[in-house]
């Protein structure tokens, strides 16, 4: 055990998370120390400053990545490598865009901006640490920080029973999942005597006669906990209710940032601690991937509410990602699979965030748009935003020339190389089914007349977010060079 002293390198390795935490404290402080009129401005200033600072640090770090190398910190508990940096980039982008969105969504709903922003930043800080943690304690603590923040955020609309319900459901289910996770960690520690992912990996590797049943059980429980967080079938039940009940901005944040962080953690656990015993998890991941792609796409077909449909779509995308994770099991396809999955996660951020942002734009009479009918005739009222939404839906459905297509293509390509043909066929057929439910929204926007009712004025903030996300979705689909390079670096960080 090294002596507990904190060096500047340690601090540097978690600098983005520190910036966000400072921002969170600042935002709460603003609520206390500023006059009522100045609170909003102060809280927003602090929010943007901290996110921007973290973003600049992450980008510069990533830009010079090979030169700077990976940065371990805190005696090997965290490691700021390419995977952590690249996923952090996505998480920070999602946080920033959510912050821009929240400015309008919060107005007039009795949510104190300081409180909301503080929770947002704390959640994001937890995610940043989660994707860089290589030690199960850090892993667990950061996962809990992000979860607690998001539980509260999903109940942010205190007067709305559905928001309350969402928070309660999420908390109960999440606590349950945490129990599994913690138990798994304890068993793994008991079996291997180590909390470091690398330590566990080498202990399992050197174990005589393969891993012990205790270790395997620990692994399984850990996987169940993570499957809850990423929403793999059959651990997805909380997703539709929570996504539907939570304020749309929170749903947007949750669906992309939490997923990116949890998947990042999953990749790290499987590829560092779990790599010596691929056969222990291959079948389980295979089953989860198959069940998730098939069930989620079929369930999404029946949804009338667009938010619920997007919730099931989020589950379906977990399924496609899991196809990539299953491909990790084959050594020949490992690098491609990791690259594809990371690229998928990154590009998924923009299309889903954009779609939820548009859902908050399509609202009428002071509430968020939910039913398909709320989208009727939107193409006439907001041609550019509606086009952007079409881009998101097309991308989610996996049609070219968008990020969603390329992501799916890379993941399935790796899966074919891994000879997981059944998963690929389930995946492509699932995508074909998904075209139907995604395009229902396009039908409503472009081919149905607008109903009576007072449409909300287009908020410039939301429109900006929507258009920015659409731009990213297209750029990632057509000119993915840089981002694919970072994805590749991420896969090397995991595998080499």
């Amino acid at each position, binding site marked *: 055990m090294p002596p507990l002293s904190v060096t500047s390198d340690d601090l540097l390795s978690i600098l983005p998370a520190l910036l966000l935490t400072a921002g969170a404290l600042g935002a709460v402080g603003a609520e206390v120390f500023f006059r009522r009129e100045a609170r909003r401005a102060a809280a927003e200033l602090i929010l943007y400053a901290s996110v921007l600072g973290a973003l600049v640090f992450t980008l510069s770090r990533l830009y010079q990545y090979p030169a700077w190398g990976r940065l371990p910190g805190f005696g090997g508990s965290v490691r700021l490598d390419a995977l952590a940096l690249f996923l952090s980039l996505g998480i920070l982008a999602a946080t920033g865009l959510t912050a821009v969105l929240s400015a309008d969504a919060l107005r007039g709903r009795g949510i104190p901006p300081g409180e909301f922003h503080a929770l947002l930043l704390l959640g994001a800080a937890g995610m940043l640490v989660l994707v860089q943690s290589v030690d199960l304690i850090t892993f667990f603590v950061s996962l809990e920080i992000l979860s607690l923040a998001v539980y509260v955020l999903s109940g942010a609309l205190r007067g709305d029973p559905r928001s309350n319900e969402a928070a309660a459901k999420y908390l109960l289910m999440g606590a349950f999942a945490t129990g599994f996770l913690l138990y798994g960690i304890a068993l793994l520690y008991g079996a291997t005597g180590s909390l470091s992912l690398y330590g566990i990996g080498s202990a399992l590797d050197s174990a005589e006669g393969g891993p012990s049943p205790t270790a395997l059980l620990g692994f399984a429980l850990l996987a169940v906990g993570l499957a809850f967080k990423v929403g793999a079938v059959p651990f997805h039940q909380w997703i539709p209710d929570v996504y539907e009940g939570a304020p749309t901005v929170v749903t947007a944040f949750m669906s992309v940032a939490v997923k990116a962080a949890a998947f990042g953690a999953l990749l790290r656990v499987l590829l560092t601690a779990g790599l010596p015993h691929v056969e222990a998890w291959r079948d389980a991941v295979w089953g989860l991937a198959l069940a998730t792609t098939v069930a989620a796409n079929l369930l999404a077909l029946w949804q009338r509410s667009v938010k619920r449909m997007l919730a099931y779509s989020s589950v379906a995308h977990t399924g496609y990602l899991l196809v990539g994770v299953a491909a990790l099991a084959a050594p020949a396809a490992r690098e491609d699979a990791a690259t594809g999955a990371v690229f998928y996660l990154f590009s998924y951020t923009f299309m889903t965030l954009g779609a939820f942002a548009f859902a908050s734009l399509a609202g009428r009479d002071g509430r968020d748009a939910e039913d398909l009918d709320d989208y009727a005739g939107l193409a006439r009222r907001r041609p550019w935003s509606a086009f952007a939404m079409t881009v998101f839906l097309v991308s989610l459905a996996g049609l070219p*020339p968008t990020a969603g297509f390329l992501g799916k293509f890379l993941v*399935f390509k790796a899966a*074919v190389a891994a000879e997981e043909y059944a998963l*690929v*066929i389930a995946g492509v057929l699932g995508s074909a089914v998904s075209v139907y439910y995604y*395009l229902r929204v396009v039908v409503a926007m472009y*081919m149905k007349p607008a109903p009576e009712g007072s449409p909300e004025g287009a908020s410039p903030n939301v429109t900006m977010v929507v258009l920015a996300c659409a731009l990213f979705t297209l750029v990632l689909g057509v000119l993915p060079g840089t981002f694919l390079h970072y994805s590749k670096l991420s896969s090397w960080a995991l595998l080499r």
Partner: protein
Amino acid sequence: MILTLITFLPAAAGLVLAGVKSESKVRAAALAASLVVFGLAGYAWFAFDPENPGMQWEEDYPWIEAARIRYALGVDGIALAMVVLTAFLMPIAIRCSWSQPRGFMIALLFLETGMLGAFCATDLFLFYVFWEAMLLPMYLLIGVWGGPRRVHAAVKFIVYTIAGSVLMLAAILYCYAKADTFDVVRLQEVLPGLADVRAVGHWLFLAFGLSFAIKVPMFPFHTWLPDAHTEAPTAGSVILAGVLLKLGTYGFLRFAVPFFPDAARLFTPLVLGLSAVGVVYGAAMAMAQSDIKKLVAYSSVSHLGFVMLGIFSGTIEGAQGGVLQMVNHGLSTGALFLLVGILYEKTHRRGVDDFGGMARVMPAFATIFMIVTLSSIGLPGLNGFVGEFLVLFGAFKTHPWLAAVSATGVVLGAVYMLKLYRDVFFGPVTMPEREKAGDLGRAELGYLLPVVVLLFVLGVFPNAVLRKTEPSVRKVVEKLEPRPNAAAQRHE
């Protein structure tokens, strides 16, 4: 560079025009852009070297290097014929939609880029991107600007097509995993020799073939077509019949057959059988229609059956006839949809029974309709004759019985088209208020006459097309010829 220009000029114009408010400027600019594309395609056509069976005007740049995907374009005779056909029909489609809003024009321009790109792409990934990217504009054309049941038709169109193409995506990935390249020319050389690919060749052929068969459409995958055609606006129908369906037959020629020749030979009887059924079934269904547009739509099923029959006949005559028929059908059926569109615009009717004696009311219209009708049923001297003749000639050599069955399609075609002509144009004038409908205007003549001229030109000089397509068609036919020594080759 010329292929990139041809392919992306329409989309670039569409992007720019999205920011222009004035409807009339958008229309004029869209027409101008499509005419420039036609000019470039025309230049490519005349500068094309007919002796060279390989790709010409090739361009090849790295695109997504991490996955070894390249931006590679190139055309052989078959692709170039399709490019010229597309570039020829597009200005006409734009001109015939002069009353449509700007979104319509922009969708048409993006559609053109998608189609041209799919014909020009020599990288399999790039092809797939264009293949799918063209669906959305077409979907919007049908769904937003179509007839009363447009939503149903649009959704059916896109769901059918995508359901077919996702399996092709899986097959593409498999080919890449085994051959380690997306280069189409390279794949044509390598894939037939790979043991891994041969072992599951029939599955791969079916995966590619299904997606193309839906596009063609081959019986029994044709059910989306009548709906889509009937509900689509005129320009949409013209492009759908003229170009989009050809992508299916083109796909067989370029990918399915050369990639998996063993499987193609194995499935030849099935494909030929379905084609013959399609020829007769399409014609029979066309006879039963009371809606003129639907009648023309079913006639497409019949005509495309001929194309498939020719391609899979395994003879150079048949395949050349099939390719010629691809062009002919694009022109004749495109023209028929234009005429039906004009009739509908003037009278707001489309039922066969709604009309009578129109020859007296609209003499110029009736004349052009007659010429197009005769071309469609294959009167010698007009374009349809040569293609049909070659197809049947080729098919008789290898599959006389199927050719005989299909030949009845020619007869039935004459029956339903001439019956349609008689009912609409001869007899007493019904609906006297329609007499004020008026004959063809200058604008309509302006876009119909080029087509009519081409019908005659191709009828008299079919070699203009055949000469340029022959080397590339021959390469495909060689793959389909029964090879008794195939087993011996396998052991090499």
